[in-house]
């Protein structure tokens, strides 16, 4: 089936490293003309990285690409476009103040800088493209105000206008309604029938089954299988996605689970999450699983007062509390290690010690004035306790590795002596060795009587650490699985959205 003679695009030995961590290893893949090819895998399995390499967003560390048997170097998105490769992002790139028609031609006008732009022709061409796609978008309107689905259509139209032969759609259906998904599929099939190749990245197996001819499964940066979709059952695909041997992590030592520390009742923020009710007890680690975009981070941010919920109640240690800002949350003994370390965690240019003591203003400055002695002692203790590797406490934290930065953030929050700790993807982008250290630490924290809510997209992590695993999908809780019953399959099944079934069957 994979005959290199006829492949549109062949990848050989594609590998990619970020900061020394290999996220993609030796991927070989042949994409045929006139097929819709699904890429599936857990979050972080490498499928999006692979797609971005094809589209020129990243350069591979090793490996080569050939297009119609010609070796190609896709050095930038512009080169990719010239070669006929288009990547459609989940949230499409757009120039909101410019019209749809103009967004379609931007970057493809090769006329002299001051030559007159043929607006009439551009508008007519754009309308023709929209008619071809069978969508009714007024191309003279500005992009601002178009729905995400329409913006995706514009991107697709754009790829047609530049006559792309390979169109990569990165989780295009996540923000769409079932009806919009159906329209997208009709168009995707039509493009395939014209002989174009489409890469379809999705978590929704039903969609993969309904649309795609072949499916490639990624796991831990490796390609594990490429098969005709018809030859694989859903459970086959799930098994391939998670099929790594379950590593035996240090399980937490039987900590005593006490009374409820954190209780949410019907927490709702329209558009983000609905009716979230859960409880975390002292000494308990509760996992929160689900796919990216399921609303887990939004719930965490609501609990911590960064983006408070619109309705619902939060109880801390049995008392109803009002949390409107992180300051309130900290006062109630909460701590939150955010997912996006660079954006919401570290103070890149400031010293490690200042980063570690950022949340304990009162403790390092009992009388307004910062005690250098206390500051250093707290920082030094943390560095020793969490085994943070550094050259000097006065080193800017930006110079440390990701794992050590994350330890410093954790140290910051441990210094506030929280009774409830929310960890959002605490081991993302961290070396495997340091990960194990984190697992030990999280276990010890729970053993010390803290309540821990652990958001993670890594199923083995959830299974190894958590007393219970809750699963969210599309803003709602869909499962509450006790430790002994939890399996990767069960979690995955609860995480995959179900609401779009009817729309897909077409």
């Amino acid at each position: 089936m994979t005959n290199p003679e006829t492949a549109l695009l062949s990848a050989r030995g594609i590998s990619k490293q970020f900061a020394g961590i290999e996220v993609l290893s030796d991927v070989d893949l042949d994409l045929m003309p006139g097929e819709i090819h699904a890429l599936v895998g857990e979050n972080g399995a490498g499928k999006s990285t692979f797609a971005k390499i094809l589209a020129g967003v990243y350069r591979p560390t090793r490996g080569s690409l050939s297009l119609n048997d010609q070796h190609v170097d896709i050095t930038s998105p512009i080169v990719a476009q010239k070669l006929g490769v288009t990547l459609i992002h989940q949230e499409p790139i757009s120039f909101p103040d410019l019209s749809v028609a103009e967004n379609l031609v931007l970057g493809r006008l090769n006329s002299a800088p001051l030559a007159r732009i043929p607006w009439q022709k551009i508008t007519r061409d754009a309308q023709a493209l929209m008619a071809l796609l069978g969508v009714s978008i007024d191309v003279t309107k500005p992009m601002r105000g178009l729905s995400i689905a329409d913006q995706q259509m514009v991107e697709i139209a754009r790829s047609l206008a530049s006559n792309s032969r390979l169109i990569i759609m990165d989780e295009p259906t996540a923000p769409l309604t079932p009806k919009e998904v159906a329209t997208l599929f009709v168009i995707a099939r039509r493009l395939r029938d014209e002989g174009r190749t489409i890469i379809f990245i999705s978590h929704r197996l039903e969609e993969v089954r309904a649309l795609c001819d072949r499916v490639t499964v990624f796991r831990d940066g490796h390609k594990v299988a490429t098969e005709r979709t018809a030859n694989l059952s859903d459970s086959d695909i799930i098994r391939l996605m998670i099929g790594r041997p379950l590593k035996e992590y240090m399980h937490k030592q039987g900590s005593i689970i006490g009374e409820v520390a954190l209780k949410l009742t019907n927490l709702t923020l329209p558009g983000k999450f609905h009716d979230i009710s859960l409880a975390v007890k002292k000494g308990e680690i509760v996992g929160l699983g689900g796919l990216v975009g399921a609303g887990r981070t939004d719930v965490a941010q609501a609990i911590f007062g960064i983006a408070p919920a619109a309705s619902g109640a939060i109880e801390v240690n049995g008392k109803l509390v009002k949390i409107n800002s992180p300051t309130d949350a900290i006062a109630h003994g909460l701590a939150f290690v955010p997912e996006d370390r660079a954006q919401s965690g570290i103070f890149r240019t400031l010293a490690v010690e200042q980063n570690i003591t950022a949340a304990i203003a009162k403790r390092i400055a009992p009388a307004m004035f910062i005690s250098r002695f206390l500051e250093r002692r707290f920082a030094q203790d943390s560095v020793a306790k969490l085994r943070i590797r550094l050259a000097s406490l006065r080193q800017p934290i930006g110079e440390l590795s990701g794992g050590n930065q994350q330890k410093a953030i954790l140290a910051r929050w441990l210094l506030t002596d929280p009774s409830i700790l929310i960890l959002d993807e605490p081991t993302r982008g961290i070396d495997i060795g340091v990960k194990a250290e984190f697992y030990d630490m999280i276990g010890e924290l729970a053993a010390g009587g803290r309540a821990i809510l652990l958001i993670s997209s890594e199923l083995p992590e959830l299974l190894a650490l958590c007393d219970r695993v809750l699963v969210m999908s599309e803003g709602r809780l869909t499962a509450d699985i006790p430790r002994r019953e939890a399996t990767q399959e069960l979690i995955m099944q609860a995480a995959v959205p179900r609401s779009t079934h009817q729309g897909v069957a077409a």
Partner: protein
Amino acid sequence: MKSLGTTFLRREAGIVVMIVLFCLVVGAVKPQFLTLNSLRIIFLLVPLIMIGAMGQMLVIVARHVDLSIGSILGLTAMASGMMFRFHPEIWWQLGFALSIGSGALLGLFNGLLITLFRLPAIIVTLGTLNLYRGITFIMSDAKQIDRQYVPTALKEMSQDSPIFGIPWIIFMSFGIATLTYWFSMHTRIGREVFALGSNPTAAPLRGINVSKVTLTVFTISGALSGLAGIMYASRWGFVNPSNTGNGFEFQVIAAVVIGGVSINGGLGTALGTVLGVLLLGCVAAALPLLGIPGTTQNAIYGAVILVALLIDRLVRKQGQRQNVARAAA
């Protein structure tokens, strides 16, 4: 382009309504405001601001700001003034080339500092504002170019023309506005200015040369301030090293933002800016009639900038709300 037209016309219609209402209210109090003569006064007040505003509009659309235009105006006016004074034998029309050319160079210098060193435009142009003003003093030896040195033919351009006696500088300012409209709507580089301002991070992904576009807008802004410089000499008949162009930047920024150019970049039209300039012109012409001293002008410019910022924010908020509503529907 019809498309952009329909979306923005609402904002422009709003300014027209404001102009009409303002004129009617003032006219009700002082009927002489609604005469041809006061129209002439208004139209003689606005040409310099209009030309400066066209350049500033492009700069703000590209998400920058140029504070140095008043000093560029002063320097370029002085350059031509000195040519008139010390080399009266040179063909006076060359003053235009001199002012526009030197203005373009000064603007290019701003642009180079901003693109080469990745500095914020506001600080760079705050620096060059003073630098250019200082150079003006130095080259003029702090001496004013008096009326007798400015060629009569140049001064007459602000008085008269063969066409209905409408002064040349009015034609020129509207000509520049038309050219700016053309540039911003119908040329590739003009559209790239809007694309850059609309989404600076995505612009390079679409093959837009950000440095080139930035240099272009600052050079245009400088060149147009140079044109405004020689027109200053024409309009007022003298060039003073300290007064000429002083505070020009605030009038221009006020006109541009009231004309609907968003400080968040990407949005703005030449027509809106023209209307913004005319509204300011009406206000300035009405003040003396209403017996309000001219000293209130600066406060009005300041208030206008703040009010325009608030409107801009309201419009944006409403747009977001509509989007949310549409997404929910």
